[in-house]
């Protein structure tokens, strides 16, 4: 036993010495980026102001400060100046983030400040943006900049608060239990009328073996009424509690999650006016075949009243105004968010957890606009991934879903969401020295519902639901000279049909259904030339052309051209 303790002590000492060498007290990392872009409408638009030009140069300097081995302070300072602002005009010095994290008493991990957190797809999860299914490199690296700007790192939400984590280990029965608890502030207007809003919760994960675990999760978005004067006391809360598990059975993993949600609201006269309860479950199996194929099949059912602010908030705010050339078309209307904006516009991205279901664009994805936690869905999800070798990868996912309860009708909508993606690396296949790759992605989304009822007045048939969309991504990257790549890509969205969008009040109750009919297409094509200084530094010149065709009203059609230069240094 003595020798055993001695061995552990020596190992820890060795790790400690190694760490001291590797990590200086302050480490600088960050991003420096300069861009200039020119946007213009096509020459046949003679109605709208049709040009814009802008750009900026910035440095995000991230400091990783380690005053000692148990504490790390991280902060990012941004220095930015706009192109066209001379001698400091249009310049800004901002604090992008600041946080501290460490280990207390060698047992408890803590973090405080700007922190990234996530739990499960039904509790706290930042779903990926729409139309990003394996898009071409020429678009992907531009979208990544949006993610950086908005702290969208994988499926984490950036919040401001604190969290703690610790673990209990066991000798028998199970390996360990992981605990995490957190509290974040969601809103604080300090206007005396609107109470502060917090989000807090925790997770307990029972690690039975390395591959099997059971988790208990709870998260609640709630108001603090006492932060306002008594006249304005009101309290909203949205609580979600779930339990999830993973069990390895031979080569197969069984997984699942189930839980409930509540929305409660007490108004300023202390009357409980809202009390909504929902539930969901998901059960599935995952199997690895011959180390190459990953197959996953699951069934889920999400009740129409299941609301989880942390999982259903969207990365894009579809009520935002677009930044570039907002007024277009012979109808001179304010254009809505398009494929171009999803990739290039920072202003439409959302960083906050929203207490109500956010608006979404039906033509992008009317099947799972809120990810897996989309309420009022039930059905099967089958996912197949090929991860065999480095020459190509492919995966396909099909979700066949149906309403749990009819929406404004006794009949239920049927949904189908099919996504396929594939990458081919020709250089690895043929042994070329220069990299050549092809990426492709396809998404089919549809909602359908026959209808046999008629409108009371006109006696016309109520329009059936038949909205479907195809999103095609195709791109290639060809290294023509040493470190110089030609990037080509296209993104096509075709959509047609009718669907009904629920218009909700602040408690996600449907007050009406708005019938929307679409028939059109969007196409974004790009060609770029990129010089890679290394894997993290590149200079890109790119030309994009975006076309939106509205077959129902051609006055809404428009074309935007965009040329830009981007120099990005990640260090």
């Amino acid at each position, binding site marked *: 036993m003595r020798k055993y303790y001695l061995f552990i002590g020596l190992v820890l000492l060795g*790790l*400690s*010495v190694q*760490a*001291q060498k590797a990590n*200086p007290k302050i480490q*600088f990392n*960050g991003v*420096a980026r300069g861009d*200039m872009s*020119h946007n213009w409408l096509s*020459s046949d638009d*003679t109605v*709208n*102001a*049709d*040009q814009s030009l*802008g750009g900026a140069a910035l*440095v995000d300097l991230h400091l*990783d400060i380690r005053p000692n081995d148990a504490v790390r302070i991280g902060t990012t300072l941004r*220095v930015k*100046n*706009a*192109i*066209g602002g*001379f*001698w*400091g005009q249009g*310049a800004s010095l901002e604090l992008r983030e600041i946080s501290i*994290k460490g280990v207390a008493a*060698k047992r408890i991990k803590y973090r405080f400040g700007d922190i*990234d957190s*996530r739990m499960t*797809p039904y509790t706290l999860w930042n779903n990926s943006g729409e139309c990003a299914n394996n898009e071409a490199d020429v678009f992907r*690296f531009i979208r*990544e900049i949006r993610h950086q700007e908005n702290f969208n790192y994988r499926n984490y939400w950036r919040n401001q608060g604190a969290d703690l984590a*610790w*673990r*209990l280990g*066991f*000798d028998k029965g199970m390996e*360990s239990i992981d605990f*995490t608890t957190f509290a974040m502030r969601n809103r604080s207007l300090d206007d005396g009328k609107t109470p502060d809003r917090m989000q807090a919760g925790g997770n307990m*994960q029972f690690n039975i073996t390395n591959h099997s675990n059971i*988790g208990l999760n709870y998260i609640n978005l709630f108001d603090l009424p006492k932060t306002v004067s008594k006249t304005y006391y009101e309290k909203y809360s949205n609580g979600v509690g779930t339990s999830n*598990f*993973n069990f390895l059975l031979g080569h197969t993993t069984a*997984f699942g999650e189930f839980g409930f949600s509540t929305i409660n609201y007490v108004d300023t006269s202390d009357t409980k006016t809202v009390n909504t309860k929902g539930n969901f479950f998901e059960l599935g199996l*995952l199997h690895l075949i011959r180390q190459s194929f*990953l197959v996953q099949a699951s069934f889920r059912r999400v009740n129409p009243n299941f609301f989880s602010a942390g999982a259903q908030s969207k990365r894009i705010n579809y009520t935002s105004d677009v930044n570039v050339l907002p007024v277009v078309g012979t109808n001179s209307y304010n254009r809505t968010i398009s494929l171009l904006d999803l990739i290039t516009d920072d202003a439409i991205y959302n960083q906050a957890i929203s207490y109500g279901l956010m608006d979404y664009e039906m033509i992008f994805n009317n099947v799972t606009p809120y990810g897996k936690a989309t309420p009022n869905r039930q059905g099967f999800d089958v*996912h197949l*991934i090929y991860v065999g070798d480095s020459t190509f990868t492919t995966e396909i996912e099909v979700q066949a879903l149906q309403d749990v309860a009819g929406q404004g009708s006794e009949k239920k909508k049927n949904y189908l969401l099919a996504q396929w993606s594939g990458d081919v690396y020709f250089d690895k296949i043929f042994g070329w020295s220069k990299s050549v790759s092809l990426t492709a992605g396809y998404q089919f989304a549809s909602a359908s519902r026959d209808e046999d009822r008629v409108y009371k007045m006109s006696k016309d048939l109520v329009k059936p639901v038949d909205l479907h969309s195809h999103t095609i991504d195709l791109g290639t990257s060809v290294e023509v000279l040493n470190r110089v790549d030609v990037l080509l890509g296209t993104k096509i969205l075709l959509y047609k049909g009718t669907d009904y969008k629920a218009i909700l009040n602040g408690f996600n109750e449907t007050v009406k259904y708005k019938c929307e009919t679409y028939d059109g297409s969007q196409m974004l094509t790009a060609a770029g030339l990129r010089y890679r*200084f290394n894997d*993290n*530094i*590149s*200079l890109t010149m790119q030309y994009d052309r975006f076309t939106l065709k509205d077959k129902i009203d051609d006055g809404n059609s428009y074309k935007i051209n965009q040329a830009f*230069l981007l*120099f990005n*240094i990640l260090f």
Partner: protein
Amino acid sequence: MKRFLQLFCLSLLPIIAQAEPFAGDGEFRDTSATHRQHKNLLGKYNGKQGLTNFGVTGNYRGMVYYRNMDELFDGTYSQEKMLLSTNDGGRQSQLELDVVARPTSTTSFRTDFYLYSPMRGAGYNENETGLQMGVNLDGQMNYDNAKISFRLGGLQYTRLSKLTLWASENEGESLFERNTWDYFQTAAQNYESYYAQGTIIRDFRWGNQFCQGLVASIYDLPWGLESRVIYAKTPNNGGQSSYLDTIPNISYGGFIHKKFGQNYFGVNTFNSVSYDSVVNGNCIGYNIATVDFSLDFLSDFNVKGEFGYGRYVDGETLEKSFGEAMDVVFLSRQKLIGSPLKLHVYRLSPSFINLDAGFNTYLKSTAGYNGEGGSSYPVGANMSDVDYINGNRQGLDLRAEMNFSGLKVNLATGFSEEIDHQSTSVSFGHRINGIMFARVFAYQNYMGPYSALTTNYRSYYETNPLDTTAITSKIRFAVTEWNLKYKFNIANRPFYIFYLGSYSSCQDQLAVLPVLKMEKSYMRVQYHELETYYKLSEKMAVDAYFGLENMKGSYGYTYAQNGAAPVLEFGKAIGLGLDFVLAPLTNLYVRTRWFDFEDKHNDMSHYRGFEGSLELKAFF
């Protein structure tokens, strides 16, 4: 039980070994085991090695500036007062930090900060911080047949050619005044340099225009070619806050040079384009194309020149105008007079419009061109120094440098005439007290008791209307400058005397030398500046300055604004200074100046006062 406790204690070891970096912060296991490799060029930098090639330099400039304006015009101006400040009206900064980082050997970025405390007693609330030059990103791409070096961001300084993108280089300058951009000098180092080489240490901005955007230089090309490409905004693309306006207003251009030895031949282009206010607007602005060259011949001689053609589209009328330009300098290094002799010939059509070039574009009025260039620049017939050439002119000037036993003489004389008689006013600078006056009234147009004065950056000029019924033909100009430099020792320490003087006139007849008589001229302007510098010790130099200027307008031809009499102005200044090296890279500068100005024909045009500054500058 004991065993359980022992193992339980073991399990309470740190969750993560103290020395390991944190990983998966707050990450919880997904309920679904599906995953995708997150392929991207720009992943999060957590876990990456830190930046090592990173430096901060800068300077500290602590200043106390005092000014007492005893008299100012008609006594109603609020500036007629005493002022105590921590800056002299120039760039407001006490601490300037330049941050340069080099992530790789071929890429770097830099930015600057300034920090300034006005020390008005209100505490830190009034302290300021910001950027001056801003963020610049540099990159270099190296190939066997080309090297490309580029900078993206701003501010940055660059140039193409004199008729495309350039900044005026005014050779004659007083050394007495302090500049915010002055680099460290040991005591009298700059004066020695000026005496010995004819230049003062100037920084990278000299002759370069500043812009924001992309500047790429391509060199080491085959066949001796080199090139530069610019796509950037200058201050004439919508002003210094043009980022607020999304309508494109941008400049682009470049050059290609073919080098052969020290000589070259090149083509240049520069275009400043914007759109008028109409929806689906019309393209307006100016487009310039030139050819330039530099050729040595007969071993001693060199000819360097540029010929160009420009098109200008007016934003209001969409009228197009075209104009030609020529600028050629012949140099004899020694053969003709035993010392350098330069002959400069030029012609700038009034329609050759380029606000970013190395000459003063002719301005008919303060309206400028498409809203740019009007304010703060001399308007009409501008009487300027030899090196400061103006548009709507053709002329020539001669400059020679001679050395007479240590007395270095730089003489220049030039004459020119309007190409088209368009001027209805004459403008001239007030050099002697220009920097001081520009501090008092920053960037103002047509101010003063006779609405004749316009202040610019560190200068101001006066505009007097011409009697257009009396002046009906081309206006001619003549100017002579002489710059004398002498050095001798006192007590084995160098003593420098510098004299800079000039005399210019404008009149109806072409004259090789300036006209001295009133009846033959419309306006005569002369400046005299005498400076002495004595290096008292290795660490100390004392400075003295005397300046005098005189402007004389002629009756019947010119008058001060608002119907006043033609000017008869005298401007004087006496200054004393001290340069002291306190420590390595740390200097103390003291400057004092008594100044006086009056117009004997127009009572209200006068001012008098004193200014002084104490400047502590340290570099790091």
